[in-house]
Structure formats: C-alpha cells, structure tokens
C-alpha cells in the first residue's frame, strides 16, 4: 500500500449506508511469468464482478496477454505456453480493457499486494495511471475468521489452496487466472458469512 493510501485510510470511510450487498467488487487474479516485479510479466488477468452474492459469468473478464518475456520454469504451474494459439492483445490493450472492466470497484484478491503491484508495474510501463481502487485481501480477511486461542497455532501464510480446502471449494481450475478469481470470490463470501457470525459486519469493518 502506498504511503498516500496509508494516511488516507482513516478518513476515507464509506458511507454508513453503503452495504456489502450493494457494493460492486471485482475479484481478480493474475498469472505471471514469475514473482519478480521488475522482470516478470503478466500472462493472464482473470476478473469477475461480485455484487449482492451474484457472479454473472457473462460479465467476467479473462485476457491472455501477448509477450516477449517468457519463463519456462513457471509454465508447469500456469500451463500457458508461449505459442499458445489464441488471439492475444498487447499488454497495453489488455490493460485498458481491464481498467474499463474494473472501474472504481473495490478490488478483492488473494495476496492482493502481489497482483496489484504486478498490474501497476505494467501500467507504469505503458504510461497508464496507477490503480487507486480500495483493496481487500482474502488472505488477511481469512485470518480474522480464525479464533484467537493459545490452543491453536495460526499460520502466517494461508494459501488459496488452504482456503479452498477449508471452505470445500473445488480446485478444478486452480492456476488459471479466472478459476483462481472464482475460488477467491467464493472464499470471500464464506469469510464474510463467518465474520457475521461473530459480530456485525459492514463494508467499513472489512477494511479495519
């Protein structure tokens, strides 16, 4: 999170009346050539709209990006081959499509920092503005659902696989961008449900 957002955080609350149900969330995931923000590239962005517990398939976003940089070692994870026959837009085109899809919605991702930084680096390369959307991270939100007890050791890091196991979400399309976005979306819904069992939850409380 940038310094700017950090200071902004406290004053920048949502209207008390805006509910989780009404809010348009965009749940996203990126498949990348690796974990290096400078050298690695985005292969695919998958994103879907989540509003009032509904995901409309028609209104989802999946784009494979044309590229120069390609790392063989991650191909076995995401399964995207360089010569993958598909009409792929350029990075700049893909990003513009994505920005149009995203709008001013709240971003949800698993380990959001990674995806958002990856996208921001790409935006920067193409001379496009940075993302200023609010962000939620299912990896962090999930921890809030866990009971605080000395009997139970919390892990520092919960992977998307952990969440899928805990919430019984099929891992069929794991490691495709849109498939992972879908798992993240369902996990988010289940997390909110869990949090609601403990205390009243509104949009603002998710950011605290």
């Amino acid at each position, binding site marked *: 999170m940038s310094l700017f957002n950090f200071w902004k955080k406290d004053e920048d609350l949502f209207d008390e009346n805006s509910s989780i149900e009404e809010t348009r969330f965009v749940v996203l995931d990126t498949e990348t050539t690796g974990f290096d923000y400078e050298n690695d590239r985005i292969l695919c962005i*998958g994103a*879907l709209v989540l509003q009032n*517990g*509904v*995901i*409309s*398939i*028609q209104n*989802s976003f*999946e784009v494979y990006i044309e590229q120069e940089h390609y790392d063989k070692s991650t191909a076995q994870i995401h399964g995207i081959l360089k010569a993958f026959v598909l009409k792929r837009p350029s990075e700049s085109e893909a990003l513009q499509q994505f920005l149009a899809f995203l709008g001013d919605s709240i971003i949800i991702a698993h380990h959001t920092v990674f995806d958002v930084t990856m996208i921001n680096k790409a935006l920067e390369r193409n001379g496009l503005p940075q993302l200023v959307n609010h962000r939620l991270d299912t990896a962090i939100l999930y921890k809030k659902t*866990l*009971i605080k*007890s*000395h*009997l*139970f050791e919390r892990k520092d890091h919960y992977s998307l696989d952990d969440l899928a196991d*805990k919430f*019984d979400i*099929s891992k*069929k*399309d794991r490691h*495709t*961008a*849109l*498939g992972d976005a*879908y798992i993240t979306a*369902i996990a988010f*819904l*289940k997390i909110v*449900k869990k949090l*609601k*069992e*403990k*205390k*009243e939850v509104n949009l603002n409380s998710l950011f605290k």
Partner: protein
Amino acid sequence: MKNTISHRVADFLKDFPPFSFLHKMDLEKLSEQISIIYKDKDAVIFAENEKTHDSFYVVHKGAVALKKSTKNTVLDMCDEGDIFGLRPLLAQENYIMEAVAHEESILYAIPIDVFKPYALENRIVGNFLIESYASNTRNPYSDIHKDKLYGDDLAHDTMHSDTNSFDLTPIKYSKKIVTCSPSTTARDVARIMNKKKVGAILIVDEMLPIGILTDKDLRNKIVTGDYSILTTAEAIMTKPVITYPKKMTVTEAQMAMMKSNISHLCLTKDGTINTKAVGILSKHDVMVALGNNPAVLIKALKRTKKIKEIKPIRNRIMQLLQGYLDQNIPMTLISKIITELNEACTTRVIEMCIEKMSSPPPAKFAWLALGSQGRSEQMLHTDQDNAIVYENVSEVFRDETRIYFLKFAGLVNKGLFEIGYDYCPAEMMASNPKWCMSLDEWKNQVHHWITNPGKNEVLLSFIFFDYSVTYGDTELASQLSDSIFEDVKANPIFYVHLVSGALQSPSPTGFFRQFLVEQDGANKDNFDIKRRALMPLTDAARVLILSHSVKGISNTAERFEKLAELEPNNSELYLSCSYSFKALLKFRTKQGLLHHDSGQFIALESLSKMEKIKLKRTFKTIKELQELISVRFNVSNVV
C-alpha cells in the same frame, strides 16, 4: 467467448438432466449466460406470489427447501443438481411456493430466454420438461419419482405427515443387479454375494433371468449338506423367477412378496421373464421405503460404498430424531440410539478411509471422539472433535507410523466434513499432529497438563477427558485412562484448577433472575444454552467423576446417576442434575431441529411461558451444584 468459469459450470451441469441431453457445444454456450448466486442459510430465493424471475435455478452446492409459507411445511428439498423454479416460468404465473436456502448454498441461475430455444430445438430436452410438467414431479428421471409434487396439487401435501399414504409411492429398487451364469458353482455364488454384500443373486441366461438364489437357499441346500458346494447354480436355484414391472408401488411390492412368500422380486423391462432384468427388489428395500428405523439405517450404512452416500443417511437419522422427539420418547433412549447411529456413520467413514490407504494400519490404534461426541451427547450436526492414539512403536518405525496415521486422519476428517461435520475451528482434530500421537506421547502430554495446570491445560483436559472410543483398540484408551487417574491422584491440586475452570461458565440467571442473553454478534439477545446451562453441568460432572476415579462413563447424565449412587447424601441433587441435563439437551435438540442449526442459541421470545419456567427450574439445580463443588474443592483458597 471461451471462459474458465463457464467451463466449470458446463462440466457440473452435464451430469444432470435435462442438461445431460444437450450437445457439449450448446451446453458451453448456455453456461456462458449463467449467473452464480451465493445464498446464506435461510435466505429467500423467491417468495410465494412473487413475480417470476427471468431465470430458473439449479443447486450447485447446498440445499434449497421449497415451502408453502402458510403451512410452513417443507414440500420439497432440492440438493445438488436439482432444478427448481422452472415451472412458473413456463406457465407464466407467479411463484406458488417459497424457495429458501436450507443450507448455505451456491446456485446457478439460468435465464429462461436463453434456455428456451434449446428446449424447443432439442426433442429430448422438451420431452423432459413436458414429462416433469405432466407427472408433477420435479425430475421424472429420478430414481424414485420422489412423489413430491411440483406445484398446484397441494391438496396432497398431507402425505408428508401421514406415513400411510407412502404406500402408494413408487418403490426404489436396486438397479445394480448381481448376476451369474447357470453353471457357476454354489461356492462361487457365495463368494460373489459376499463380495457384493447382497442377499440374493440372479441367474441369467442370455441376459434373461432364469432363476434366483438367496441366502436362504444356500443355508437350506448347501449348508445342510444336501448338495455339494460345487453344485451348479442351475441345480439349486429357485425358478421360475417371479417378475414384475419396474413401476411398482410399495404396497404392490409388499403384496407380491406376501402372496408368493418370497423375499426378492425381479423387475424386468416389461414385467415378464422374457425381457431383460432391470432391477431387484428385496424385503429390505420395502422396509426402507416404509420408513426410518435404526436397523434399516444401519443396514443402509453398511451397504454404502462411497462417503457421499452417507450424507443422505444422516439426514434420515435427523428425521428419525425429529420423530422420536415428537413422540416424546425418553431422552436417555433417544440419545443412545442417535449416538449409536452417528457413531456408525463415523465408523463407516473410518472403514472406507482405511481401504483408501495403500496399506493396512502399521500399528494398533483407537479413534477417539472428544467433547460432546465423546460424552454421547451430540444429536445434531456440529463440529468435529477427535483424536488418534496408537500403540508405541520402536524408534525405527516412529516417523513412518506417525506419517501414516496423520495421512489417514486427514482422510477421515475430510470424510466427516463431507457427511456434515464441520471442521473444528481450533483444529482439534486427529489430522493435527498434536492430536495424533502414540500412547506414550499421550501419557506425557496428559502428565504435562496435570502437572502444569494453566488455563489452557485445563481447557484442553476438559475436552480430552471426555473421550470415548469410536473405532479401534479400546485397550489403548483404557491404558491412557489409567495413567490419567494415577496422575490426577498424585497431583490433587489439579482438581482445584479443574473446578475453577468448571465454575467459569457463567451462572444462567442474572441479578434480577432474568435470563442472561448474549451481547454481541449474530446471536445478540439470544440465550446461549450450551455455555450457560449445559456446560456448567458437564464440567462439574467431569470433576466429580474424576475424583471418584470412575472410568468408562463419559455421558454427563449417566455420570450424575453414578454419583448419586456413590454419594447417597447428595443423591437428590445429583439426580436432579441428571434430570436437568436431559431436559436441557432435549430443549437444545428441539431448537436445533427447528432452526436447522446446532441449537446453541435460543431466542427467548420464541419460548412459551411453560418452557421458560422449565428452563429456570434447571438453573436452580445448576447453582446448587456449583456451590457444592466450590466448597468441596475449596476453590476460593487458590483463585
């Protein structure tokens, strides 16, 4: 546009009619237009008399109840793959029923405009819809025509309460027919029947049934020595086979069996012996159709081959429980039966998981149920609390053994999750390395708790001391109990900690003798019957029974009864504790069934005056009991 999620949806739908009749391409196209909807438990999908939506629904995960709100009776329960809300769209009328998420659910909403062309173009799809329309069943291809009406014919809804009319329902028969050829020897026949776990085998010649052999035939003809075990099936089979058409009602099946004094019917395509056999119907099937009883459920459990098949059986156990409560059968008896059945489900899961492992267990082990399961007080679906203790193994095999049991426990925990036991939020499950140890490791662990009794240690021992063996070697558990008693005897200070822990559960009445209700969260203003009423009793019973070194009784009510025996001067209080506990448990169970949850939180305004008085009466007992233990173990001196 090709899309990962639409593939996922298409892949799910392809297994269910009418989608199964669509071409792959069409189904994928259709799937692109679908919305995925998440509904929390009890959320309304559509209300009675509401204008129709532009989509109908398919249950992807969870369950949806169709209700007539005026009567508040569930007319139909839809689960994975079931369609609902289609008929009103086709008929262009408002919804005549209410659809409510019975569990947390994920639904696929399919726009009717998108779907209609497929129904018109594809004859099979169209026929399916017409048939479901005409037969008034939700799914004409379901195994039984579930006999739950799809809509207008609500005059029949009495049938759900009136078991007699069940007799006219079509019977469910087993479609997996076990067959052999006429030349198979009696010994091989017995082997096949054993392997397939059936009581009858059909002898077929060129696909046509020519005779039948049952357990009884083998007993009467082979075991008596009248025939050799190498006799061919043909020589000893009963013939001709009595055949019937597959569309049979329960009553017809019963009549047929009575008439010919047989226990198995063969169902053929047209009802004669000249067509292929399609199913076999046993007395057992008739019994199952006639209703739930524990013996039938146990038998049904034994026949399951996949963990998935256990879930519907658990639902029937819940129906049985509801029936028992309605008939006001004594709680002691109810909890015994239900616990037995629940344990049988767990045992079946464990058995299946052992089969799934690549090798048999490398050492003796016991699967322990902890907490309420261990105390046989768990009626409703709740969290899992379990552990494994295995025999001590030599150093060389230590790692290997631990890895085996952890992997095995992981399978069982997942299996139990699949049949409806949630994961324990505190990871108190056998798949957690801390709860899967050898006997010596456990002894050390317990010794540590007893000699270092901090808050957590006491809490852990609370949960742990109520274990009972669900599966495996009881001797191991018994040895562990012995070691606990010795340890506790040698460290009497431990009682004080246990007691102060037991007294922590807040007393159920407040200053003005009002009910204490919860202050926060989703259960605000509700009474927490578990924490405020059941737990104080459970905790006290545990301490007291431990102080008498009584092992093998983990049920709270039974513990109080034993205590009444051991301390005649306090017997009146203990008996009233036992009574109160049972009353509270019944209360909780009824509430849980009513709201389809664990019954832990009770909305006070929903209670009648009578019920409130009954509840308060138990509180007095709880208070007296808490006084008794705090004086006896002299807690105030320490805390």
